């Protein structure tokens, strides 16, 4: 058996996505939350490429490419926002950014 | 399968040995050239003409006290030079030095591995090499080292963009990412090289300038200059780890010079066809060097040179004869042309270091984003229009 079953790739992708969701929900540091989002996007990329292999088409690779571009743009703007928030509040804990709460 | 593994291991051993020697002697060449630019002799005491100076430097660095300060972040502190030099050496593994040769019945390339995304591999490995410097700055737990490391990494990633776009232009002409096929499309003489026939002179210059910045060389070496920021990211490093950063810098220099040769100057192809006598060029150059050395050996200005100049003369004449042996010619001539072109670009690196002052950091970053990147993009558009019109 020198072939890896396709379902193993999909399971790995599900595991990474679940860990990303766990990090997003449980962590308090805003940069770690951001990194969990990137982990989720990577898991989705793996799924796209796996299905592209299974259906023998190149479209999955292209969607991965677009997801990477969007993730890069989002990281750039998100990190700029984080820097601005840190300049104003001197904290990276998302529990303390609650001035719009009633 | 077995023969493939054995041949690959032999090639790895040869390339590693040659690369390490070249790194050591590249430093000797740099010191001699900069010294002669500044009208002074450079190292000449240790061994004839300072040729054993790299050995003395290695002994000094190895026997220096390897100090690890107590306040550093130990895992990252130890991993950073390792990462820098691993990535620098890894990118040599896809550089082709010559055509396919046949040794004792086995056909093999003069290259460690031929990837069909060779250009992307070199770019990927140099992107990861940025982390070595960033982590060195962070792990040192020192404000100056951190600032130096961040400045250096920001400079490297900023100049990666014009470099990549400058690489894209000859790729449009050669139509392949495979480094061996890239040289194959430039075969046939100097008028087929991407620099001349493809008209990629602007790309070549942008690539070289970006390469200066990628390898942290003058005029872009503000983050690691000794009189700025207390020596930047390698402030807290001593002996072999410090040596590792410098070996990484020289290995990166060799890689970008080799990439420039492969992309723009036709790799290992001779400038004109062998049947018009390009096989005589290396012989002529080495014979000339040998006769000049012998001539100066007759009445040398320094007494010690009465022995060394004739010895060098005989060695050079021997190498000149070596280039004429027909059995060796098939692989030693391409190797000579590749080494000559890469060596010319390395000489340009050293020449610029001896000549230009360094940029201030904001001038450096403004130059990348406001000048080099638009120029590279315009060149890419012009090349694309040219390729579309002529095809």
């Amino acid at each position: 058996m020198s072939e890896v079953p396709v379902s193993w790739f999909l399971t790995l992708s599900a595991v990474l996505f679940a860990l990303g969701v766990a990090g997003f929900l449980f962590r308090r540091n805003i940069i770690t939350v951001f990194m969990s989002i990137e982990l989720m996007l990577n898991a989705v990329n793996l799924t796209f490429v796996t299905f592209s292999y299974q259906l023998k088409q190149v479209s999955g690779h292209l969607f991965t490419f677009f997801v990477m571009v969007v993730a890069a743009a989002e990281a750039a703007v998100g990190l700029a926002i984080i820097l601005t928030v840190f300049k104003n509040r001197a904290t990276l804990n998302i529990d303390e950014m609650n001035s719009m709460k009633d | 399968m077995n023969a493939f593994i054995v041949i690959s291991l032999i090639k790895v051993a040869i390339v590693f040995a040659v690369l390490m020697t070249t790194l050591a002697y590249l430093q000797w060449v740099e010191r001699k050239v900069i010294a002669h630019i500044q009208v002074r002799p450079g190292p000449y005491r240790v061994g004839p003409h300072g040729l054993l100076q790299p050995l003395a430097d290695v002994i000094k660095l190895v026997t220096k006290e390897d100090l690890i300060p107590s306040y550093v972040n130990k895992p990252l502190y130890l991993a950073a030079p390792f990462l820098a030099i691993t990535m620098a050496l890894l990118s040599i593994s896809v550089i082709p030095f010559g055509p396919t040769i046949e040794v004792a019945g086995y056909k093999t390339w003069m290259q460690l591995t031929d990837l069909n995304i060779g250009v992307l591999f070199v770019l990927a490995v140099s992107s990861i090499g940025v982390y070595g410097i960033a982590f060195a700055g962070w792990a040192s737990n020192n404000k100056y080292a951190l600032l130096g490391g961040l400045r250096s990494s920001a400079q490297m990633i900023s100049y990666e963009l014009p470099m990549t776009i400058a690489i894209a232009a000859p790729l449009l002409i050669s139509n392949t990412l495979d480094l061996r096929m890239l040289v194959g499309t430039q075969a046939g003489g100097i008028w087929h090289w991407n620099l001349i026939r493809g008209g990629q002179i602007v790309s070549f210059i942008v690539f070289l300038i970006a390469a200066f910045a990628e390898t942290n060389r003058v005029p872009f070496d503000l983050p690691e200059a000794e009189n700025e920021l207390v020596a930047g990211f390698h402030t807290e490093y001593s002996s072999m780890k410090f040596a590792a950063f410098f070996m990484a810098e020289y290995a990166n220099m060799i890689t970008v010079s080799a990439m420039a040769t492969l992309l723009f100057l036709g790799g290992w192809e001779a400038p004109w066809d062998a049947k018009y006598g390009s096989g005589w060029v290396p012989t002529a150059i080495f014979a000339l060097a040998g006769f000049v050395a012998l001539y100066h050996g007759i009445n040398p200005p320094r007494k010690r040179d009465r022995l060394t100049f004739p010895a060098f003369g005989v060695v050079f004449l021997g190498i000149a004869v070596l280039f004429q042996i027909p059995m060796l010619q098939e692989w030693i001539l391409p190797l000579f042309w590749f080494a000559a072109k890469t060596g010319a670009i390395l000489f340009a690196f050293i020449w610029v270091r001896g000549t230009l002052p360094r940029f201030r950091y904001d001038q450096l970053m403004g130059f990348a984003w406001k000048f080099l990147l638009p120029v590279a993009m315009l060149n890419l558009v012009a090349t694309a229009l040219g390729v579309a019109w002529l095809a």
Partner: protein
Amino acid sequence: MDVVLFLIFAIIAVVCAINVVVQTHPISSAISLIGVMGSLAVLYLLLGAEFVAAAQVIVYAGAVMVLFVFVIMLLNAGRETVRGRSFMVQLLGVPLLIAFLGLLAWIAGQFYKPGTGVHFGGFTGGSPIAIGRALFTTYLLPFEITSILVLIAIVGAVVLGRKEMD
């Protein structure tokens, strides 16, 4: 051989991903995330996606993560304090997660017949030529729109990073 490679890099990816979520200092999380991206790049090579693997290392691990590392080093906010969580959540959380993922793995396994697995060389359409051809013919509109998106992101980042002129 392919199975061994997959298992090695999948285990590295999962361990690094757990590390991203569990570590208290953001720089350790960032290094672990670089590890995840590197092992995913190897898995893409196994799936015949060589251009995507190179793009993953150049763009994701080599540029986006460098941005993260810069911001963490510049802000230097230090370790995160772990506040108390309810005991019930800690007791039930990880076993429930493992049970859920195990169920998902079993269901996914039911869909695929044996013999249609992944091996090196099973898909050769991931070369740069194939991607370029598809990108500039079928997917031209998304390509142009993402380039405008990147332009908007650049302008946004420059505006946010500017010093306020008072």
